[in-house]
């Protein structure tokens, strides 16, 4: 009966909420009990009857790991074991590629972080057995990863038996956990996969090109990684291809790729019988990237929308602010001498076309670049 009433309320709320057009779609998708945030049955825009929360301490679950507490002491269920010192920040960093904050703070509102015990009951003997109890909830969070990471399920990796426990001052413990951070994750440059594709077995994946040049963020591919993705597995140290043996469908297996590359693209772009060379701007477009451009992400020139917008090879197409007065010629690797720096661009670069060889004929009869240079070579900076 209680449940029925609850359903009715929810139904009523949903209908009345959706009737108000000004309530965001996101709000409805939260999929949480309205009572988590509202005290009355029918919150309206004018009277949202929000639960009073300590506004100044409000935190969302979308914090950066670095903004989260370093240490959390879990001491609610102390019985056989001492309190657990949980190094929160380093765990938050670790889970950045494994589901983020919501991995543990599931069903949280966008408002304050809910305590585990606001839903999970401390008593195992209880009426509502739909959710795990508090002890179960805590341990599931920890042990799921820990047993994958270490293969162990012993209690003493987190707990100290009560008999061996020496209470310490909180400051002392805090000091011990201060500054504990996950080491910077080293990014692979090139990964070669041996697939079971009939044609073009080898796939060469330039990881750093994708992350640095193409500007793809780690979590757009690595959403649900577990620690063992990097730890506890035999990382390929020899240069042998990584075997991919999967029963996934085409879509499942290529999910990350086809979010950018079209599904109908030529397979041989990635699949080949040999290890492929990285993307080469000169080969593909005829325009070599110099020292300045090579480190830019593609989006800097081609826009962030896919497919990339084409740009011509005129400097001022991108460098729109450059003009006769402010342009420092030395960035090209050639510092103009005093005489030449007085000239305007098109005196040498005919019709302001910087893609073709500069010409000296405007002033000199028998001079030609690069045999003769209008200054000194400084090397590109």
């Amino acid at each position, binding site marked *: 009966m209680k449940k029925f009433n609850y359903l009715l309320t929810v139904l009523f709320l949903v209908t009345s909420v959706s009737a108000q057009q000004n309530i965001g779609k996101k709000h409805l998708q939260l999929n949480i009990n309205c009572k988590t945030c509202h005290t009355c049955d029918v919150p309206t825009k004018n009277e949202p009857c929000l639960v009073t929360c300590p506004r100044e301490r409000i935190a969302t679950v979308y914090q950066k790991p670095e903004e989260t507490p370093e240490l959390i002491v879990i001491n609610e269920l102390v019985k056989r074991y001492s309190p657990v010192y949980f190094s929160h920040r380093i765990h938050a960093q670790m889970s950045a590629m494994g589901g983020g904050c919501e991995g543990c703070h599931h069903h949280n509102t966008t408002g304050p972080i809910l305590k585990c015990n606001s839903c999970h009951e401390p008593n*195992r*003997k209880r009426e509502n*057995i739909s959710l795990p109890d508090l002890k179960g*909830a805590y*341990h*599931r969070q920890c*042990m799921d990863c820990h047993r994958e990471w270490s293969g162990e399920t*012993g*209690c*003493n990796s987190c707990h100290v038996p009560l008999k061996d426990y020496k209470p310490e001052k909180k400051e002392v413990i805090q000091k011990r956990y201060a500054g504990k951070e996950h080491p910077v994750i080293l990014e692979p440059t090139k990964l070669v996969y041996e697939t079971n594709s009939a044609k073009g077995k080898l796939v060469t994946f330039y990881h750093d090109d994708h992350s640095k040049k193409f500007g793809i963020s780690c979590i757009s591919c690595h959403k649900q990684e577990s620690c063992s993705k990097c730890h506890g597995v035999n990382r390929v140290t020899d240069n042998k291809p990584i075997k991919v043996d999967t029963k996934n469908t085409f879509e499942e297996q290529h999910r990350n790729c086809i979010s950018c590359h079209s599904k109908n693209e030529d397979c041989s772009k990635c699949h080949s019988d040999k290890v492929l060379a990285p993307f080469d701007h000169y080969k593909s477009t005829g325009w070599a990237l110099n020292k300045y451009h090579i480190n830019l992400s593609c989006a800097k020139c081609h826009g962030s929308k896919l497919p990339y917008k084409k740009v011509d090879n005129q400097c001022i197409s991108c460098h729109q602010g450059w003009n006769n007065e402010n342009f420092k010629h030395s960035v090209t690797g050639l510092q103009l001498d005093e005489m030449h720096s007085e000239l305007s661009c098109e005196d040498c670069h005919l019709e302001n076309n910087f893609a073709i060889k500069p010409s000296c004929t405007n002033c000199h009869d028998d001079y030609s670049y690069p045999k003769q240079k209008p200054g000194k070579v400084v090397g590109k900076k």
Partner: protein
Amino acid sequence: MPGKSRRDFLKKSAIIGAGITGLSTSTAKAGPKNILSPDRMGVLVDTTVCVGCRNCEWACKDAHNLPAGNLESYEDRKVFEKKRRPDHTALTVVNEYSPGKNSNMPVDVKVQCMHCDHPACVSACIVGAFSKQENGSVIWDTDMCIGCRYCMVACPFQVPAFEYHKALHPDIMKCDFCFERTKEGKLPACVEICPVEALTYGPRTELVRVARERIKKNPDRYIDHIFGEYEVGGTSWMYLANKDFSELDFPKLGDKPAPGVSESIQHGIFAYFVPPVSLYALLGGIMWISKRRKELEEELK
């Protein structure tokens, strides 16, 4: 009351006699206590949650005064190299299997008596020592047990173990659903200790609802099968898993109660076991008579 005991004794002697000669005990034997309460309790074992810490093995022994050793020694995962069965030294054991779907972690499965809703052991027990209690547990009366091992043969899960080491006082051993503990309002010892609450204790009807909900909410995590919901007519302990139960050493069983439960013992599987059964009955009868005589003598003193 020696008088009553004697009457009891005579009645049971008659049953044994009938068992030996005609094997049609079901008509002659006193009806065992066999309650199927709508409020009976059960346990839902979620093998996708179990981490194989074996704390439950320790807690079970500890609660039943069996040599348990210290809890740390249970961290040793080498035991998983062999598949084990519950026996008289351990009423429950955890076995490990290769990962199921969408997971790269091994599947750990706790094994113990299933506390069937229509227990074959209860029907098979010729002296009525076994009973299904109101709270769902299937227990037995040590004093009544004659050590005939009918229950061992009858159990579709091969659960009851025999305490061979006490020749003079043979006894059946199996999980008793912590009958003494739950009577005092405590949780079964294994349920209480489980760090991840892979074992959920509650009314059986509620457990079925919870199990269905879990499968519905996480179709990637589970196969669509609650083992024990219907098997052999339903069991109080039920299981969820992410791979076929036959790959986890669960027997393939129909939805009907095990043979021999509703029919007379002569039918069903016992029909094929006539020679050993008669032998057991005979041996059992003798054992029981001598055991009982000793007790009677003491009572009469």
